[in-house]
């Protein structure tokens, strides 16, 4: 039966010797457990997986040992049971020959599985669950690129998938791993294809593409596919039909646009090995822990396909196949066209290892020296992507990145067809790989430099801003200093406002916690008293027989005196404070306002008035001090003397002030008589003095005083009234009402006393 669909012919392509028969003579082999398994964390395209086991842990076959780090990453599972012996840098199966982090497992020989989660009927599971299972099984494209399969099975919703292609082409010489897999496991491949179709929501066409050099595989697949809608398509053998984009073209005639993925034209392409792995993951719950690999080359005694555990060191594989290192020209992972020479045979088999090639020098001679390009154009004819390889060569040599990109270097699939046909043996692919690398590097550097520019510019801006802020602050300070200077000058000219402000500030500062202040003063007093007591203690000779000298006695006396002075000071302070408290609280609720009033009064006072005011305050202080002194004397305290001193001092001060006042008075009366304003001020002053006196008086005394003053005022008012009656004053009515008011007030005051 031939395929029913039209097959398109790939442009270009080459026909290298196939050499596939030599590895198909023996059935699929298996290897004993190797002494250790090395599992690099990055066996796929994308971010390396993150280890979830620690050194020393025992792991079971199929257990997750490293989990995917993001969408573009793949889980990693233990290929057999054993112990994690190391998580360290190991040589990678990579053309760079670099090392990378790997989990090393020492098998325990039991090959003990973890419990698996099989699924009899996947059609009952929804899309997300199935994709999650494929993802959990750690499947990456087994064809060679290692693209995470779950990502491919979950295309963007705006891509309508109409064709699923399963790639069984296997176009590279030597490799027969997929061929044998299709021959021996055709039913599972078909089941896998149906599963993928189910996951992809049943695309219209299900195609399995196989080159016509694998008749056994085609027959097996066709037999297995009977009764399904899967079409097994065979097409003429030609290298490189197995490339994803090439196979899509061959089977559908559609080309994947530059820089896009097959899903954008409604096609998903999966390798047969990947399809099988996905099937086993969903049906049996088996993660990807082994793969079929071709071990081939004339330097081996046994050439065959083996099912090998991921992580098996290649030197162990070679040893099992009778490898003769002296005959081998080199070791290649992958095929002779696209594979790369292994830097060392200790690297492990990874998920993308489809072939281990150990050719002799006759079989695969080392490349002949490259000669100059003769512009024959054979490479352009061979190119399956219809590029112009010789032009790309020139531009790659000249490192002309713009021209390389203009000639679509990034569409090159690095198949090696051009190098294969080149009569000058020019390693064209190596040029393209190097050019791609340097373009990518250049782009990365460009991005970096752009970021650097942004950072630098941001820094410049920030510095400029900081400078501006500093400058602004400096200017503000300068302005403030100038203002202060101006104020100072104003103050010198008219001290009114600052005095007011000062008084306000003082009161405000002292206001918030009078109780605290009192407590503080009391503490101070107590401390002073303590030290006085201490000083008064009789002198005790330090040593027996020592005579207390006169000098010492004098010193003690001095100390006592000092302490006494301190006590007196503290007491005075406390007394002052208490007095100020009582005066403050007596006349007004708002001490600030009162202070303002006082200050204003003080400002408006004449020097004489000022003196009088201070004399009054001194007198009140004196009376208080005297009272206290009497009290203390009654108690018989030791402070009596000090208090007496304080009293004396106050008296002295009062005398001084009185003398000063007396000096001023001679001029004052003239002023007082001449201006009524001054008289009024004096009256205010008197009232104030009286109020102050009243504040210090007892309640009864206060009332008596008030009564007295009222009586005096009533008398005066009466006098005035009679005088007014005699003179027939027009204001007589006002006088009368005033007198009546005063009398009623007097009555009010006297009533409670009587």
């Amino acid at each position, binding site marked *: 039966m031939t395929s029913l669909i039209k097959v398109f012919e790939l442009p270009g392509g080459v026909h290298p010797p196939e050499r596939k028969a030599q590895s198909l003579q023996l059935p699929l082999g298996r290897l004993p457990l190797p002494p250790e398994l090395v599992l690099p964390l990055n066996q796929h395209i994308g971010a390396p997986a993150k280890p979830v086991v620690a050194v020393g842990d025992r792991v079971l076959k199929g257990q997750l040992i490293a989990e995917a780090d993001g969408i573009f990453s793949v889980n990693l599972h233990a290929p057999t049971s054993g112990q994690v012996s190391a998580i360290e840098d190991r040589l990678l199966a990579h053309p760079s020959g670099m090392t990378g982090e790997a989990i090393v497992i020492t098998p325990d020989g039991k090959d003990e599985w973890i419990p698996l989660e099989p699924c009899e009927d996947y059609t009952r599971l929804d899309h997300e669950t199935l994709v999650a299972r494929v993802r959990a099984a750690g499947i990456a494209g087994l064809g060679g690129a290692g693209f995470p399969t779950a990502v491919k099975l979950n295309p963007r919703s705006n891509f309508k998938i109409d064709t699923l292609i399963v790639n069984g082409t296997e176009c590279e010489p030597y490799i027969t791993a997929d061929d044998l897999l299709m021959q021996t496991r055709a039913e599972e491949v078909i089941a896998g294809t149906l599963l993928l179709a189910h996951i992809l929501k049943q695309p219209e066409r299900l195609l399995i593409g196989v080159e016509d050099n694998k008749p056994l595989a085609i027959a097996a697949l066709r037999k297995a596919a009977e009764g399904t809608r899967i079409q097994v398509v065979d097409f003429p053998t030609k290298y490189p039909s197995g490339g994803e984009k090439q196979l899509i073209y061959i089977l559908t005639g559609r080309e994947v646009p530059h820089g896009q993925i097959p899903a954008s034209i409604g096609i998903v392409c999966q390798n047969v090995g990947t399809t099988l792995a996905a099937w086993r993951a969903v049906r049996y719950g088996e993660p990807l822990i082994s793969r079929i690999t071709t071990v081939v080359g004339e330097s081996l005694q046994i050439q065959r396909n083996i099912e090998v555990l991921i992580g098996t060191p290649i030197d162990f594989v070679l040893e099992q196949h009778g490898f003769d290192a002296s005959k081998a020209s080199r070791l290649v992972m992958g095929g002779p066209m696209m594979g790369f020479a292994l830097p060392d045979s200790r690297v492990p088999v990874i998920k993308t290892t489809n072939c281990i090639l150990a050719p002799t020098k006759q079989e695969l001679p080392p490349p002949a020296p490259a000669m100059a390009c003769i512009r024959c154009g054979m490479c352009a004819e061979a190119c399956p992507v219809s590029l112009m390889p010789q032009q790309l060569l020139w531009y790659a040599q000249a490192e002309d990145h713009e021209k390389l990109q203009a000639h679509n270097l990034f569409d090159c699939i690095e198949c090696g067809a051009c190098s294969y046909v080149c009569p000058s043996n020019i390693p064209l692919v190596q040029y393209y790989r*190097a050019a791609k690398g340097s373009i990518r590097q250049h782009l990365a550097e460009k991005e970096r430099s752009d970021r650097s*520019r942004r950072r630098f510019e941001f820094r410049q801006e920030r510095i400029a801003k900081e400078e501006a802020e500093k400058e602004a602050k400096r200017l503000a300070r300068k302005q403030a200093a100038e203002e202060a200077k101006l104020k100072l000058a104003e103050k010198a000219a008219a001290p009114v406002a600052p005095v007011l402000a000062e008084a306000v500030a003082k009161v405000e500062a002292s206001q918030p916690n009078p109780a605290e202040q009192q407590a503080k003063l009391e503490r101070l007093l107590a401390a002073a008293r303590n030290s006085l007591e201490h000083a008064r203690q009789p002198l005790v000779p330090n040593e027996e027989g020592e005579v207390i000298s006169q000098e010492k006695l004098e010193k003690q006396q001095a100390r006592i005196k000092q302490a006494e002075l301190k006590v007196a000071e503290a007491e005075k302070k406390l007394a002052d404070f208490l007095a100020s408290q009582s005066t403050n609280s007596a006349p007004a609720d708002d001490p600030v306002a009162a202070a303002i009033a006082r200050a204003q009064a003080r400002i408006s006072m004449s020097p004489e008035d000022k003196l009088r005011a201070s004399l009054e305050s001194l007198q009140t202080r004196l009376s208080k001090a005297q009272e206290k002194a009497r009290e203390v004397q009654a108690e018989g305290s030791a402070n009596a003397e000090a208090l007496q001193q304080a009293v004396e001092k106050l008296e002295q001060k009062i005398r001084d002030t009185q003398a000063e006042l007396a000096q001023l008075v001679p001029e004052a009366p003239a002023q007082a008589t001449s201006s009524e304003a001054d008289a009024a001020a004096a009256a205010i002053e008197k009232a104030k003095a009286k109020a102050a006196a009243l504040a210090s008086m007892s309640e009864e005394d206060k009332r008596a005083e008030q009564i007295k003053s009222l009586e005096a005022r009533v008398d005066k008012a009466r006098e005035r009234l009679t005088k007014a009656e005699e003179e027939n004053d027009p204001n007589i009515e006002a006088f009368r009402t005033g007198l009546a008011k005063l009398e009623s007030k007097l009555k009010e005051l006297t009533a409670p006393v009587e």
Partner: protein
Amino acid sequence: MLSLISQHPVIASLIALGGLALLFGAVLGYAAVKFKVEGNPLVDQIDALLPQTQCGQCGYPGCRPYAQAIAGGDVINKCPPGGQSTINALADLLDVPAPTLDEEHGEHLDIKRVAFIREGECIGCTKCIQACPMDAILGAAKQMHTVIADECTGCDLCVEPCPVDCIEMIPVETTLSTWKWELPPSSKEVALNLIATDRGRGETQTTGEAA
């Protein structure tokens, strides 16, 4: 109108040409105002080609000032971090012959380097932080400093101010993600080395060609 043209063809043509001149002049004048380009676009183009290390080895305080200087007529071979490739790109842009790097300003290093602070020795003086044009050094007064390697351009400017010499420039190692294939030896070299007795003659031959 027609009669005017037929009777005074010279005057008519003068009027027509003059009218066109005025019209186009107005259009151009309007465009010059409307589509005026702010700044010098050439400076931006040059700046985009410079490596943005902001190292100041060219003698200007950063890449942009040097770009402005180039736009103003300065030579293009003063940038050691950019090396010959930057000079070539600049020469391409400005359409001038590409000179070789002026070694006076420093040597071009093929391997990218980044600053590294030996943290045990750092005294936390913040001098390197102030020197870094990229804000790529992290730290505070009396606290250990460290370089954000991803942001470091390898400009060297932090090495000099360090009072305890705890900053060194270390080459950036190639990782798997930055590794790339090397270009194969050029076919010319390979061809010249095919015959053992021909070896070494390549140089004299090429110099001969050059001369």
